[in-house]
């Protein structure tokens, strides 16, 4: 879906000015990194997670958090048709009314920038296809929903996010950094397996 080729502006990961080292697949991937909602979400959570997930190093299968999220999703919104996929973009469920509603279900107990960015990406994606929609974040554990609309600023931010995601995915694996969210992350063991004091 993207027509840009090699002339993408590069961002340096370690803050230095040198060109980032590219993964050996960079040439093949270039301009064809598939952007999905989950990737946008992960980009806002952790670059290492985004990279690993994008390189098919998935650990979500074993994660309890992911399993709970999946169950919640399947259980809570049985009635609605689920997992609509458009061009590889998978949406939890949609409601049709005056305006198309795009729903995203989250198991989290707090409303999060990453969730918002994910939904904004869906709205942006649909807009590019000529579909006008609004987004709704569902937090069943909070009994809350949040309505989200795509503003021109959001659109610009989403475009920038997409560029950054591509750069990260094409680069080499960003070294793990300890953050607060690490304790809940399925990649925790992967990231910090070797990191311990030796006797």
């Amino acid at each position: 879906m993207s027509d840009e080729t090699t002339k993408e502006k590069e961002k340096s990961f370690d803050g230095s000015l040198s060109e980032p080292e590219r993964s050996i697949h960079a040439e093949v991937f270039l301009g064809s990194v598939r952007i999905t909602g989950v990737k946008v979400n992960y980009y806002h959570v952790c670059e290492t997670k985004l990279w690993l997930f994008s390189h098919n190093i998935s650990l979500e299968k074993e994660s309890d958090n992911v399993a709970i999220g999946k169950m919640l999703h399947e259980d809570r919104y049985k009635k609605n048709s689920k997992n609509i996929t458009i061009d590889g973009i998978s949406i939890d469920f949609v409601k049709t009314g005056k305006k198309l509603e795009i729903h995203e279900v989250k198991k989290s107990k707090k409303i999060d920038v990453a969730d918002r960015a994910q939904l904004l990406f869906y709205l942006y994606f649909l807009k590019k296809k000529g579909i006008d929609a609004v987004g709704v974040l569902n937090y069943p554990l909070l009994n809350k929903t949040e309505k989200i609309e795509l503003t021109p600023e959001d659109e610009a931010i989403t475009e920038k996010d997409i560029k950054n995601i591509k750069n990260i995915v094409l680069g080499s694996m960003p070294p793990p950094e300890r953050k607060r969210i690490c304790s809940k992350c399925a990649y925790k063991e992967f990231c910090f397996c070797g990191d311990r004091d030796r006797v």
Partner: protein
Amino acid sequence: MREDFYILQDGILKRKENTVYFENKEGRKILPINKISSIFAYGNLSFSSGVVSYLSKEGIPIHFFNYYGFYEGSMYPRETLISGDLVIQQAEHYLNPERRLYLAGKFIEGACGNILRNLRYYARNREDIQEAIESYATSIESELSCLEGAKAVPSMMRTEGKIRELYYNALDEIFPEEYRIIKRTRRPPENKMNTLISFGNSLVYSTTLSEIYNTQLNPTISYLHEPFERRFSLSLDVSEIFKPILVDRIIFKLVNKNMLGGNCFRGEIGNMLLSEKGKKIFLKEYDEKLKTTIKHKGLNQSVSYKRLIRLELYKLSKHVLGAEEYKPLVMWW
């Protein structure tokens, strides 16, 4: 947490809808599919393709061992975790001689580090042999230092062979006469100790293989062992590190606590095997060992010995992806 399932008896695996049963003349047992990580089959097992496809779908490998307790092969479910990038990098680390040597050396270094830990641990309270053991340990260390200059994998293998020989000689000092290794023999193992080592090593190999299955690493691309040597040679590489930690320590316990009484072995010197009772005792210890936990400082949580194998594979993945240099696990506890 999923567990391993050991089947020592002969019988049939049956699938009825989404339940798998083990059946023989003594009765019928349900296999709790969501709680199993791998099955170790020591008996004669019959099963239908329905069972295989179901276990495959659930990602549960079955490892087969023959009458003598030797590893025969595995029903390895089709790969579902594939990362093209990782596999290419894994192969690149094999094809590049320098990179291959680095990893091959690290596996020996890890194995050797754990061997030394074992020797010093068991010689600690034995004044009569302490000096002898320490001199073996020094020889092992000096062999290990030869690794640095090694220019090819075969010469590394020779170093590894010498280290093992020194190790077994040292163990003969520690063990009572009945359990001397004298010379490592495999098929058939000629005495009790050789039998125990062979039996344990094939267990570690299978457990490691199951863990590899749960990562994106390709089990056939290896570094210390040649990829064509055996089908899943990466498992051989990684097993080296864990053999002293798991098998040797179990053997120490079994011998020191005199847990292998009469009827645990059958056959004679020159062709010695574990009896069903012996296998049972060993497997029980093995299973308990895998479940034992230790505190991991990097993760700040307790991890089981079995999990340590997985973490080792993660470390290897990160190494080939260029994220963090691989350093083998050496017991820190």
